C-alpha cells in the first residue's frame, strides 16, 4: 500500500506539486483576508461590548454550517460563489473569521486595566493606544487564532475540491469516485502533513512572540514568517498560474465523466493547440450546469435525458410536441402515462435530443452532436441472483423486491426520472426504504450483499468486473441518456476551432468503448489520462 502511494506520487509528481501549490495558495490567501477582516472586527467588537456578542454569535453560526453545505449555498451567489478556487477562498475566509475575531477580543480583554489606564493617562489617542499597547500585547493571542484558522483551512480546502477548487482534495475525491484507496491516500497524506507543518510552523512563530526576552529573535520570527508567506505565495502563484488557460473543461464527479472530460480536453489541446484548464470532478449535474451558466467552465459532457428532466424539468413523454411542453414553466415531472390514457407509451428517442438542444440554445448554450453511446440508468442485481431466480427484466425483479433492500445514489432518489417514477411504473416495493449511498460505492455494496438492487450507469466498468446483471427496462421508463457535449455559445463563437474539434468526436465513442475505459479506471486502477491517450491514439482523427 505504501509502495503504491509512493509510486503514484512519483508518476504524478508535477500534478502533485501543482495541487499542493493550489492548496497552499487557497489557504494562505483566505487566512490573510480573514486576518484583514477579523482583527479589525475583533478590535471593533472590543470597543463596543454591546455589539461583541452579536458579532461573535453570527460568526459562530457560520462556523456550524458544514463546509460542503456552505459550498452549496454559495453556488448561486454571484461574484463570491460559483465553482472554483474563488468560492473556496470565500468559504475558508468565513471559517477563519471566528477563531481570529475571538482571539482578538480575548487578547484585548485580557490586558491589565491599569496598563490601559496608564496609556490613556499618558495622553495616548485611541489609535496610539491600539497600535502601541493593545495590539502588541494581544498579538500572541491573535497569532493563536490565526494558527487555528490556517489549520482548519487546510482541512476545509480538501473539501473545496468538490466545487473544482483544486488542491489536494482533488486526489481524495478522485480516489473516492474510483474506490481507489491509493489515490485517496495520495491526497490525504500530504494534506495531513501540510496541516501538521502549518500548525508547527505557526506555533513556533507564536512562541517567539511570547518570549519577548530577545527582541532580536522575535523580530527574526516575524520577518521569517513574512518571508515564508511571501515565498509560498510567489511560488504557488507561479505553479498555479501555469494551469490557467483559455478553455475550461468541466465534468461531474464520477469516473466516466472524468474520462469524457479528459477526452474533450485532450482533443481540444491536440487539435487546436489552445491551453485547456481541467475542472474535472465537480460534484453533481446541477453544479456543472451552474458552472456552465456562470462561465466558470466552458464545456462539459451531459446526458440528454438528464438535461431534459433534471435541468429543464421537462416531461419525458413524446407528446411534448403536441402539448407544447417547451414553454418555460411547463409542468415538471412527466407522467409516464397520459392522464386517463390507455397503453404505456414508448419514449420518443428521436425527440429528446432536439428538445434539449432548443432548451439549451435559449440560455446561450450549445448542444454539440452526441458522442455515440447512451448511458442510461441500469437497474442492477447480482449475477448469482439473476441466474438463480431467472431475472431478466425490472418487472421480474419487482416480484422479489419485497424481500430485498435497495441502495441508490442521492441524485437517483431526487431526480424526476429517478426512483419515485420507477417505483410507480413497476410497482416496486422493498423490505425497507432504499438506502442512500454514494453512487460509486453502491456497486460494491451490491456485490458484497449489503443491498440487493441498485441503480447504476449502463456503461459502468464495475458491472463486468463485479459480475452484476443489468435488468431490462421492459416498460421503457428511462429516457435516452445520450452523452452530449454542452458548451457556452460565446466560447464556441470565439474559438470555432474548438467546436470543430469537439464535433469530430461525434459518434466516435461506443457503449463498449466507454465501458472498457470505465473498467480500465475502476477495475484496473489505470490512470485516467493514460486511458484517454491510449483511446485517442488507437483512433486517429477521423475523416471530416
Amino acid at each position, binding site marked *: 500500500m505504501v509502495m503504491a502511494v509512493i509510486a503514484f506520487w512519483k508518476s504524478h509528481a508535477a500534478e502533485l506539486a501543482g495541487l499542493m501549490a493550489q492548496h497552499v495558495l487557497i489557504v494562505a490567501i483566505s487566512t490573510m483576508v480573514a486576518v484583514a477582516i477579523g482583527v479589525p472586527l475583533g478590535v471593533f467588537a472590543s470597543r463596543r461590548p454591546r455589539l461583541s456578542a452579536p458579532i461573535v454569535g453570527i460568526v459562530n453560526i457560520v462556523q456550524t454550517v458544514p463546509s460542503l453545505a456552505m459550498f452549496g449555498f454559495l453556488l448561486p451567489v454571484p461574484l463570491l460563489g460559483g465553482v472554483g478556487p474563488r468560492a473556496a477562498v470565500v468559504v475558508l475566509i468565513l471559517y477563519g473569521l471566528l477563531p481570529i475575531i475571538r482571539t482578538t477580543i480575548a487578547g484585548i480583554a485580557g490586558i491589565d486595566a*491599569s496598563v490601559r489606564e496608564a496609556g490613556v*493617562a*499618558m*495622553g495616548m489617542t485611541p489609535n496610539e493606544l491600539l497600535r502601541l499597547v493593545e495590539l502588541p500585547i494581544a498579538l500572541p493571542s491573535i497569532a493563536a487564532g490565526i494558527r487555528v484558522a490556517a489549520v482548519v483551512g487546510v482541512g476545509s480546502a480538501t473539501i473545496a475540491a468538490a466545487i473544482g477548487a483544486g488542491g489536494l482534495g482533488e486526489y481524495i475525491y478522485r480516489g473516492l469516485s474510483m474506490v481507489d484507496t491509493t489515490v485517496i491516500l495520495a491526497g490525504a497524506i500530504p494534506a495531513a502533513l501540510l496541516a501538521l507543518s502549518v500548525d508547527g510552523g505557526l506555533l513556533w512563530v507564536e512562541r517567539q512572540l511570547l518570549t*519577548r526576552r530577545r527582541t532580536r529573535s522575535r523580530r527574526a520570527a516575524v520577518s521569517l514568517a513574512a518571508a515564508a508567506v511571501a515565498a509560498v505565495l510567489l511560488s504557488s502563484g507561479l505553479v498555479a498560474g501555469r494551469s490557467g488557460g483559455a478553455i475550461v473543461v468541466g465534468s461531474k464527479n464520477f469516473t466516466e465523466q472524468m474520462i469524457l472530460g479528459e477526452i474533450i480536453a485532450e482533443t481540444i489541446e491536440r487539435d487546436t493547440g489552445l491551453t485547456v484548464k481541467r475542472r474535472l470532478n465537480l460534484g453533481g449535474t446541477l453544479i456543472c450546469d451552474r458552472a456552465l451558466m456562470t462561465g466558470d467552465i466552458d464545456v462539459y459532457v451531459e446526458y440528454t435525458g438528464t438535461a431534459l428532466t433534471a435541468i429543464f424539468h421537462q416531461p419525458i413523454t413524446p407528446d411534448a410536441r403536441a402539448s407544447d411542453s417547451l414553454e418555460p414553466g411547463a409542468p415538471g415531472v412527466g407522467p409516464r402515462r397520459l392522464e386517463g390514457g390507455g397503453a404505456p407509451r414508448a419514449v420518443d428517442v428521436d425527440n429528446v435530443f432536439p428538445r434539449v438542444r432548443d432548451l439549451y440554445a435559449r440560455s446561450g448554450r450549445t448542444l454539440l452532436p452526441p458522442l455515440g453511446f447512451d448511458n442510461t440508468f441500469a437497474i442492477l442485481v447480482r449475477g448469482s441472483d439473476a441466474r438463480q431466480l431467472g431475472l431478466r427484466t425490472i418487472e421480474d425483479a419487482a416480484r422479489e423486491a419485497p424481500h430485498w433492500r435497495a441502495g441508490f445514489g442521492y441524485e437517483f432518489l431526487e431526480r424526476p426520472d429517478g426512483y419515485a417514477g420507477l417505483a410507480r411504473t413497476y410497482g416496486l416495493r422493498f423490505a425497507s426504504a432504499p438506502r442512500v449511498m454514494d453512487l460509486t460505492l453502491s456497486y460494491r455494496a451490491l456485490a458484497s450483499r449489503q443491498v440487493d438492487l441498485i441503480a447504476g450507469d449502463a456503461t459502468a466498468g464495475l458491472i463486468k468486473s463485479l459480475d452484476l446483471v443489468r435488468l431490462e427496462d421492459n416498460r421503457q421508463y428511462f429516457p435516452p441518456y445520450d452523452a452530449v457535449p454542452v458548451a457556452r455559445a460565446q466560447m464556441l463563437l470565439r474559438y470555432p476551432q474548438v467546436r470543430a474539434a469537439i464535433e469530430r468526436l461525434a459518434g466516435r465513442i461506443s457503449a463498449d468503448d466507454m465501458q472498457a475505459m470505465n473498467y480500465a479506471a475502476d477495475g484496473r486502477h489505470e490512470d485516467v489520462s493514460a486511458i484517454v491517450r491510449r483511446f485517442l491514439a488507437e483512433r486517429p482523427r477521423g475523416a471530416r
Partner: protein
Amino acid sequence: MPALEFRDVSFARPGGNRVLDHFALNVESGEVLALVGRSGAGKTTLLKLANRLLLPDSGAVVVDGCDTREWDPIRLRRRVGYVLQDVGLFPHMTVEQNIGVVPRLEGWPAGRIAARAAELLDLIGLAPEQFASRWPDELSGGQRQRVGVARALAVDPPVLLMDEPFGALDPVTRAELQAEFRRIQNQLHKTVIIVTHDMGEAFALGDRLGVIDDGALVACDRSAAIVESHDPRVRRLLDAVTLLSPPEAESQRSRAAPAAEVREGGAPRPIK
C-alpha cells in the same frame, strides 16, 4: 496664579452617587500637596479631573489658567505626569521603552529618548546599563514604582499626579522611596498632588496636607497646623497614624486591632 485650581467642583458617578460636592482647592506652583482620605473619599476622582480623564458636572478645574474643558485632552495629559498605584508598566516594553513612551509619542529622535531614559534612571537610582533593557516582570515592586515615576517625568511635565504611589510596597521600601521622592522633588520643584489614605505618608511627602472627607475638603494646611486640628474627621485619621506607626510597642499594636475594626467595619458615617 495657582498651577492647579478646583473651583467649586461637583462630580457624581453615572449612577448618581455624589463623589465631590462643591469642592474647592488651589495648588501652588512647585509645592507638594498631599491629599488624605479614606478609600472612596473621592481622591482618585480629583486626579482624573485634573488631567481630564473626567470632566466636572459643575464648577471648573483650571490647569495653567485654562479650564480643562478647553484643553485638548491629549496635550493636557502629556503635560501632566501620572503615577498609578499599580504602576501599569507596559509588559511588552523594556524599562527604557516604558520611560520613552511619551517622548516617542511626541516624536523625539531615538537618541534623545535613550539619553533621557538614562538620565531619569540615574535620577531614580537605577543604574541605566543594568536596568534599561530589563522587562517589567524582572523588577521588584519598588523598582517598578521608581520606573513608573521616571516614566511620568519623561517629557519634564510641570505637574505630577500620584495616586497612592507607594501604597502597595512593604514599609521599608516605602520609607526608602518616600525619602527618594523628597530628594528628587528638591531637585525638580514640580507641582505635585499625591493622594493617599495613609496620613504617615502624607506627612512624609507633603508640603501641605489636605484632608478629604465625603467629597469635601475639611482641612488644608501645613502639617504642623493639621496636627493641632480638633476636627473629629481629621483626628480620626491622625489617631490611626499614631496607633499604627512602627516603633510603637507590643501593647499599642494590640490596640490597633480594634481601631482597624472601627475603620473598616461599622465606622460611623460622617454627619452631613
